[in-house]
């Protein structure tokens, strides 16, 4: 059987979901038997080198670069999975959704305690190289079609493992209660 090819990315996320992915511990040895990684922070491949079977998305969509990356993922992956609260609902970054953009900028770059003195010229970053900030943080499925959702902040390693295993082998996914219980 050809090894399945996986890509992963962290958009507006904290990398916690990827950390949880690594919490599969020694099963990572089984994993490399089953899959190869393409574009992913795990192997540090920056650009898609081929078509992939599965894409895992951490984090929501907060700027124009996230949109671009997410659309790339949709183009190159047969199956896309939103993993983690941020990807599914925007998560913590989406707290800014109720605050006008101008206020967010002013707090972040002009008046916040950590920048107050440092930004004497009162500059709001506007270099062309920088991604443009979106009016709000979007969940991934409001930008591209997402096939599966793994809840949790972060999702448990077992949930990630079980899901990947099922997607790769075509077996039914095991979701025992412990794996999706959150308190």
């Amino acid at each position: 059987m050809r090894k399945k090819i996986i890509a992963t990315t962290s958009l507006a996320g904290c990398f916690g979901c990827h950390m949880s992915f690594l919490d599969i511990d020694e099963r990572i040895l089984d994993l490399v038997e089953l899959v190869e990684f393409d574009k992913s922070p795990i192997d540090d491949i920056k650009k898609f080198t081929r078509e992939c079977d599965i894409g895992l998305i951490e984090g929501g969509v907060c700027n124009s670069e996230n949109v671009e990356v997410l659309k790339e993922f949709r183009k190159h992956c047969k199956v896309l999975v939103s993993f983690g609260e941020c990807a599914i609902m925007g998560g913590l970054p989406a707290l800014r959704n109720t605050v006008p953009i101008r206020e967010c900028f002013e707090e972040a770059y002009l008046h916040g305690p950590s920048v107050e003195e440092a930004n004497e010229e009162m500059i709001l970053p506007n270099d062309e190289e920088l991604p443009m900030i979106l009016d709000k943080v979007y969940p991934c499925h409001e930008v591209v079609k997402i096939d599966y959702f793994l809840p949790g902040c972060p999702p448990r390693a077992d949930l990630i493992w079980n899901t990947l295993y099922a997607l790769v082998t075509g077996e039914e996914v095991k979701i025992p209660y412990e794996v999706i219980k959150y308190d």
Partner: protein
Amino acid sequence: MDTKWIEKIVDRYGRDKTRLMDILIEIQQEKGYIPSDTLPVIARMTGISQAWVEQTVSFYHFFRREPSGRYAVFLNNSVVANMMGRDKVARTFEEETGCQFGEVSEDGLIGLFDTSCIGMSDQEPAALINGKVFTRLTPFRVREIVRNMRAGKPVEELSTSGYGGGSNALPLIRAEVRNNIQRKGPLLEENYETGTVLREKLRLLTPEEVIWEVKLSELRGRGGAGFPTGLKWEFCRRAKGEKKYIFCNADEGEPGTFKDRVLLTEYPGLVFEGMALAAYAAGASEGILYIRYEYKYLERYLNHVLEEMRKNNLLGKNIAGIEGFDFDIRLQYGAGAYVCGEESALLESAEGKRGEPRFKPPFPVEKGYLGRPTIINNVETLCAAVKILYFGSEWYRTMGTENSKGTKVLSISGDCRYPGIYELEWGYTVNDILDMAGADDVQAVQVGGPSGTLISPEEFSRIICYKDLATGGSFIIFNNRRDILRDVVHNFMEFFIEESCGSCVPCRNMPWLLKQKLEKILSGHGVWKDLEDLEKWPEIMKINRCGLGQTAANPVITSLRNFRALYEEKIQKGRCFDEGFDLEKAVEESCEVVGRIPLI
């Protein structure tokens, strides 16, 4: 700060934390809002935490935390108000006052606010201004009203319209509200003098016999759920507890219902007598009429009626000369929350708390108000019970159908020539009723309010009764010019979003998600999957704690079932994904703020 005036109010209610609603209502009325510095005083005097006071204040629509204008205008935004020209009225208010809805004019004179159905669907658009009801508003009248506000006139003199008919014109009410009684049956017939049952029948009957008679009549609750009334009374009679209570539910929050308002205006004696009758049957000593804030204009009148009944020995000690039959009634006002019509939320509210429904069991007949056995009945149920005792269950059973005996008072509104209340035997078809109300060219009827069913002409031969189309009485008619999805379903979803108490996750979120989906479809971005989602998602609503959440998806469910074509014609064919995400629009604002040209 001078706290004397607050202390006086709290003292008037015996520093009783369970009377928090009354305390807050008085402060609200005196100041036009609940100033923050009143909270610690209330908390200290009633012995509850300030957070407790705060959570109650924050729950109710009519408790304002900020000054809301010397004239606070609450303009109804129910579906019928919109159909009858609310938009023009609202625009005129905004133009004349210079502020938007949700704001107070700069000089602090006038505040404009939306509010859910205020029980005037047969005379929309309607508004409450400082508690006074204004109906049939037009842009012309709005200009006149605002002019009079600027001249500093009292609310009573804001408008030159006359008074409504019947008791509405009495000095104690003086409201422009109309009764619009279009059809009378045995309940609304004036062939009965208040107190006759208490005076003439009860001395011959034991409480058990009263219950038996109500049971024989097969009377079921008229508030919507249809629980057998005799059985409820019996449960309460059997429940252990030295003190028992009778509540009359006059919250009447279901949009499109207004019959309880008319019953309380024209037959208050009958309602109170019904409560006394229930008290006799159950052995209760105290009665509370829980009435919505929107009907505050009836307060003086209702208190007067109670006073008269006390004078006539129809309330108080040894009622009607029956030894040991002691019972009295007081009013308990709400402060704007549809969910408080749900019986256990109503009890919470009456105890001075947030109107959050309780888990059941235990049911109120066992553990109700203050944990004691309590009967809660709808206004109309109690009226019917009196007539049953007067004319006999035999007589009552001659009316209606096999499974639904007697009559039902319907509140009919929307696109028809004769909106108003209709007392009908159970068993008429929707077509019959449309005929009676003078409705032509009908596209749809909402039976039972937003929580009920939206039916199409194919179903107009269905019958109004518990077995087929059960209803608490709301009957809203839409003609063929109405946009069902935009004008009706969308409005109803906004209603539920506004009114959910927020305790249950599905109830708090699903109506919002459904509304978003609906908006997506209406904006032309819908795909087939959206219809599938609209069908599947509401299933989870069954697990909600109370009837509000359990029915909050009904506008979507029933319109999708009966008007599917309206949805389908808006769906994009041949596309399976479209969230309508627009990158250009999404970055517009941030680029403007930092001063850069978007490059896409």
